[in-house]
């Protein structure tokens, strides 16, 4: 059972996804400052996806 987990991931592999998340959420933080309307919608999407991802990760493992 431990064989496939024994391979160590590199720093790049570990931080690739978090980096994308950080960039998207930073864009979301800034966009609502820049303008209204569509800019707000971009912000809601970019920041709203964070709690959704969290729930997805928790639920996916619970049901599997």
């Amino acid at each position, binding site marked *: 059972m431990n064989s496939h987990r024994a391979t160590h*991931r590199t720093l790049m592999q570990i931080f690739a996804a978090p980096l994308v998340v950080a960039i998207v959420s930073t864009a979301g933080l800034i966009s609502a400052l*820049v303008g209204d309307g569509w800019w707000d919608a971009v912000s809601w999407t970019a920041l709203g996806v964070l709690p959704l991802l969290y729930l997805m990760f928790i639920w996916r493992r619970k049901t599997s």
Partner: protein
Amino acid sequence: MLLLCITGLPLIFHEEIDDLLHSQVKAAEVPAGTPQANLDKLLANAMASAPGKVPHFLVWDRDDPNTMFVSVGATITSDPSKNTLIRMDLHTAAFLDAPDFTGRFTYIMLRLHTDMFAGLPGKLFLGLMGILLCVAIISGIVVYAPSMRKLSFGTYRARRTRVVRWLDVHNIAGILLVAWTLVVGFTGVINTWADLVLKLWQFGQLSEMTAQYQDRAVPAKPTSVDAAVKVAAEAVPGMTASFVAFPGTLFSSKSHYAVFLHGDTPLTSRLLKPALIDAETGKLTDTRDMPWYVSTLFISQPLHFGDYGGMPLKIIWAVLDVLTIIILWTGVYLWLRRRKAGVTVERSIAKASAVDNAALTSS
């Protein structure tokens, strides 16, 4: 930190909570484009309701375009934080009410959140806590790497013991929210320096702008404040008045009205530009953009409060705040667990998983 997250939660919705808990006299509903009342008349009506007081500031209500606050103090030099706020109808110039905010739930939450009722020392203490939070977040990123060496992004080991599950929850929520918590944490720290930044501005730019008038006294009969606002608005096209500081107050010289104007996009509406109007002649004497350190403070306010993208953004802010509480809670648990065991979390996890495996193989 938990206190800050918990008191911050209701503050996101302070307007809605105030509306719900406290009845306010509503300003008259008017069609869009109705001109504002003459500010001199509005001021006279406000002062009639507060005999013996003097006006410090006129403030346009950000949240309600139909009302204006008149901030009055005992004397022109009295501490403005002890001022009374009088709500006025901006279009009819009628007196609405002068509510006492200090007993309100949102006010108590605000004080707990900003200075724990301890004034500037309280603010600076919480600012220091904020810096420590940022340090903790960054150290969290550093220790994220070793704990994720063998796991893929977002792994949640649901069938394992609590210490493993909570470590996964801590890691998932922590790494997802890292940008948001850093921004809200650091802009919160900047907000604790607001008093100092304003002092810096008073002794810097404001005293430069008013240096040649410093020997003047507060005029006995100042010119029209309504005219002063019109002069300022004409001098700075494209901007509208946000608040007016009367001669002799902290934000002006002894003989000027300081009219602070703001722009009309979400960003520029946060940036103020002062225009000084001589209260003896009614003429504009100077207007400048504020220095970078004041602008930084103004921009960091919406990024901390989350009040710049409508109700959906406020709700997202609240959800992310709850997730932050979860991160803090699981973090405290993991730390206590480690202290109790006298070993690293990794070690206790290894132990726990050995027990898990034993349980699994025996069943």
